[in-house]
């Protein structure tokens, strides 16, 4: 894939939605880009990091989203165009700063700032499908959202203009079906030159004397609403006297268009599509709905747009217009907006039959195909250090026999709670929370709490948000064991670098923060072990679980996919002695350790391994209780 600044203006190329957002930012002259990885937002920062130029464009992976938005906002106050990219969970983390930034605005230097937040309706790769549109209303800030890849490019420029004009940061919302969809995109011109950055010390940007500032902010939002009334990316398609108007945003737009086509309703139904999510361009919406006897709202996840449309209708004396959508039960209250959902809602309203699969075929599928389809759960890669770490933890907890309680968080370690994991983590929420919750439990001794408390986090999470919680644990003298799975990457989201890896988003060297030194400096007892030495690691875990105070165990071993990318070869070749292997009687390596390369061969009744899958890590040599597996160094 070429860097996105290499495409000539006027030519068309196949871009991922996130790359389209990045290209739009380049075409508008973005200067300062920050972010923290999180699906589905993670491709925006790398796309821009490939195009950086000293004094013109900077792009960074920040330590967390709060640091990211603060950095971007500050650059805008110094007159630059900045962008910060994150997933919905990241915006939640950054909210404290953001709600204050609404009040102060970006100052007089003419900078602009986009907060790009990508939601994951249906939670394809997230623990939740939280709808971040509410946060625009919550933070009193404008939000826009594109409907197609090409519009994503143009809307970035519109949003930067808006931000500059009103000295307000603008939320730009992406979502999985935009961010991770690829479409042909036509390239625009790239600007030359860059503004010079400086701060205006004659003004103080602060939120105090807030009543006045709140009033100013509300007036600013009204000015933005007035501008949204004219937004060229909002559109109406359809008859002058529609029988129904569909109000659509985001993925709802293309889903609605397809459903109307399938049902042949294009001449009878209007399609009102909005790229401006908040504030609602009330007058424009009411103008198009006032002659419609009924309305259907098509949007993803929550009834955000539907609520705003209903408010607008009631406020304008049109409360009797029938509004269908999530409230009426025509659209489910959770999940993605798909053509199927749009189709079934429209068919229900128009009393039409939604096209369904041929009956005989449906029966065939139910009887002959579906019964064969077993589920394919996620599991750690072959050679993953986490598999060894959790195997050791399982053994240590069983041997300890005091019902140790494990808290965890998001990362590849989360695979532990999936059906094929080791089911050790019992409390799991947001990044950093494994440490925070363990610190709480670790102080419950006076209440009769006797279980050892163990927290597990990744190295990226450690820097992201575990550190302040660990400080809290030390300060309040909790008893806990913090295990840090130091695999030299932000693996779960695509191996991005972080403060402990020694390189940056632009792939330049950076100071490497040592996890062990950080922990020591805040007063933790630190032990380092290699998870591949599973038996020794198990022993260390047992010892540390009994000790008072905040114990830290760093399990250091690179993510297998990161190692493989650099080394390009496997360290060992494995052989399984068919005589020594006890087969189904034992099966510890496949049934218990669950390396995906090992399986019981039904033909021989013994363990065999798949060469295409084996990473040659050699851990199974130590796992096998009968010494049936041996390893030879690869040359």
């Amino acid at each position, binding site marked *: 894939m070429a860097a996105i600044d290499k495409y000539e203006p006027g030519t068309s190329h196949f871009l991922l939605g996130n790359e389209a957002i990045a290209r739009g930012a380049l075409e508008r002259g973005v200067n300062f880009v920050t972010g923290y990885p999180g699906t589905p937002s993670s491709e925006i920062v790398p796309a821009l990091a490939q195009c950086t130029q000293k004094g013109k464009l900077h792009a960074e992976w920040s330590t967390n989203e709060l640091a990211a938005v603060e950095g971007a906002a500050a650059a805008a106050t110094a007159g630059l165009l900045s962008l910060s990219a994150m997933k919905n969970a990241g915006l939640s983390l950054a909210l404290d700063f953001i709600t204050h930034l609404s009040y102060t605005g970006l100052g007089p230097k003419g900078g602009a700032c986009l907060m790009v937040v990508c939601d994951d309706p249906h939670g394809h790769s997230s623990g939740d499908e939280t709808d971040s549109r509410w946060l625009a209303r919550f933070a009193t800030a404008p939000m826009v959202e594109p409907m197609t890849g090409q519009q994503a490019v143009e809307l970035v420029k519109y949003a930067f203009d808006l931000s500059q004009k009103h000295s307000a940061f603008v939320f730009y919302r992406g979502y999985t079906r935009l961010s991770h969809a690829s479409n042909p995109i036509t390239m625009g011109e790239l600007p030359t030159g860059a503004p010079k950055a400086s701060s205006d010390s004659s003004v103080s940007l602060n939120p105090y004397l807030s009543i006045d500032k709140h009033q100013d902010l509300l007036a600013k939002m009204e000015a933005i609403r007035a501008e949204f009334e004219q937004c060229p990316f909002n559109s109406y398609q359809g008859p002058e006297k529609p029988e129904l108007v569909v109000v659509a945003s985001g993925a709802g737009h293309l889903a609605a268009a397809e459903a109307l086509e399938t049902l042949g309703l294009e001449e009878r139904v209007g399609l009102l599509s909005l790229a401006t999510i908040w504030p609602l361009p009330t007058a424009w919406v009411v103008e198009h709905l006032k002659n419609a006897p009924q309305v259907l709202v098509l949007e993803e996840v929550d009834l955000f747009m539907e609520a705003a449309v209903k408010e607008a209708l009631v406020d304008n004396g049109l409360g009797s217009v029938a509004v269908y959508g999530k409230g009426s039960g025509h659209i489910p209250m959770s999940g993605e907006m798909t053509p199927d959902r749009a189709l079934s809602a429209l068919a229900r309203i128009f009393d039409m039959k939604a096209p369904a*699969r041929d009956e005989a075929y449906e029966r065939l599928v139910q009887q002959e195909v*579906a019964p064969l389809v077993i589920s394919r759960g996620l599991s750690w890669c072959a050679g993953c250090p986490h598999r060894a770490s959790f195997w050791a933890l399982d053994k240590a907890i069983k041997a300890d026999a005091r019902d140790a309680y494990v808290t965890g968080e998001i990362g590849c370690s989360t695979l532990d709670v999936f059906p094929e994991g080791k089911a050790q983590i019992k409390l799991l929420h947001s990044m950093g929370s494994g440490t925070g919750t363990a610190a709480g439990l670790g102080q419950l001794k006076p209440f009769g709490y006797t279980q050892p408390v163990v927290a597990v986090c990744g190295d990226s999470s450690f820097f992201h948000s575990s550190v302040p919680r660990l400080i809290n644990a030390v300060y309040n003298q909790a008893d806990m064991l913090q295990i840090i799975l130091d695999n030299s990457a932000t693996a779960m989201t695509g191996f991005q670098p972080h403060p402990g890896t020694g390189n940056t988003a632009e792939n330049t060297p950076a100071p490497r923060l040592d996890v062990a030194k950080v922990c020591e400096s805040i007063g933790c007892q630190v032990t380092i072990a290699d998870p591949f030495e599973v038996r020794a690691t198990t022993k260390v875990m047992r010892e540390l679980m009994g000790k008072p105070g905040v114990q830290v165990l760093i399990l250091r071993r690179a993510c297998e996919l990161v190692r493989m990318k650099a080394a390009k070869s496997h360290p060992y070749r494995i052989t399984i002695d068919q005589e020594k292997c006890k087969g189904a009687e034992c099966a510890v390596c496949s049934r*218990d350790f669950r390396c995906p390369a090992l399986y019981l061969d039904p033909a021989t009744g013994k363990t065999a391994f798949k060469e295409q899958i084996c990473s040659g890590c050699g851990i199974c040599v130590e796992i096998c209780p009968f010494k049936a597996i041996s390893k030879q160094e690869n040359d």
Partner: protein
Amino acid sequence: MPLSPDPYNLIISGIGGQGNILLSRLVGRLMFRAGYQVSIGETFGAAQRGGGVFSGVRISSKRLYGPVVPQGAGSMIISLEPLEALRMISGYGNPGVKALVNSEGIHPVAVLSQKASYPSDEAMSAAIHKATDKAWLFNATKIALELDAPIAVNIVMLGGLVATGALPLDADEVADEVKASVPPHLAELNLTAYRRGMQAVAGA
């Protein structure tokens, strides 16, 4: 050239790490260059960790469609793994659907831990043939391993797709695109993989 059906909904499925995203983008780029509107939808969050992954490639001569393929509306299913082909057929199949399938199975972890059993090759093949209008099954993994390039399974499958004649793809243009999308030192290897896939399906 008109497509039948239009939109043509290509589903490309497999296991994380098999390279189905590259395959869907290759096909997408080629069809876009041939003058069609193309949308690809992917979900690839935890794609590397042994889970099933799939992309929908929606191709039309009429207009741009959204990236989500409606249920039961698959035109052609290309699967890099046979169990995933069945999964896609149960969701997107219909009496007219076609399938191009790599017959080499990859066992889910639940099978390794003996909580589920993997269907036999015969059962999978029979079900795929029964529930499709036309199906091509061949062992693309074996071809890739013979070339000592296990990661080229996706390119073997691309060769297979061209040989099915299901899409208006020109064999030489596809070869050029393959060459352009891999590092130069791997070009010959991938072109061989592509040709071997084409031969395997043309001869089937």
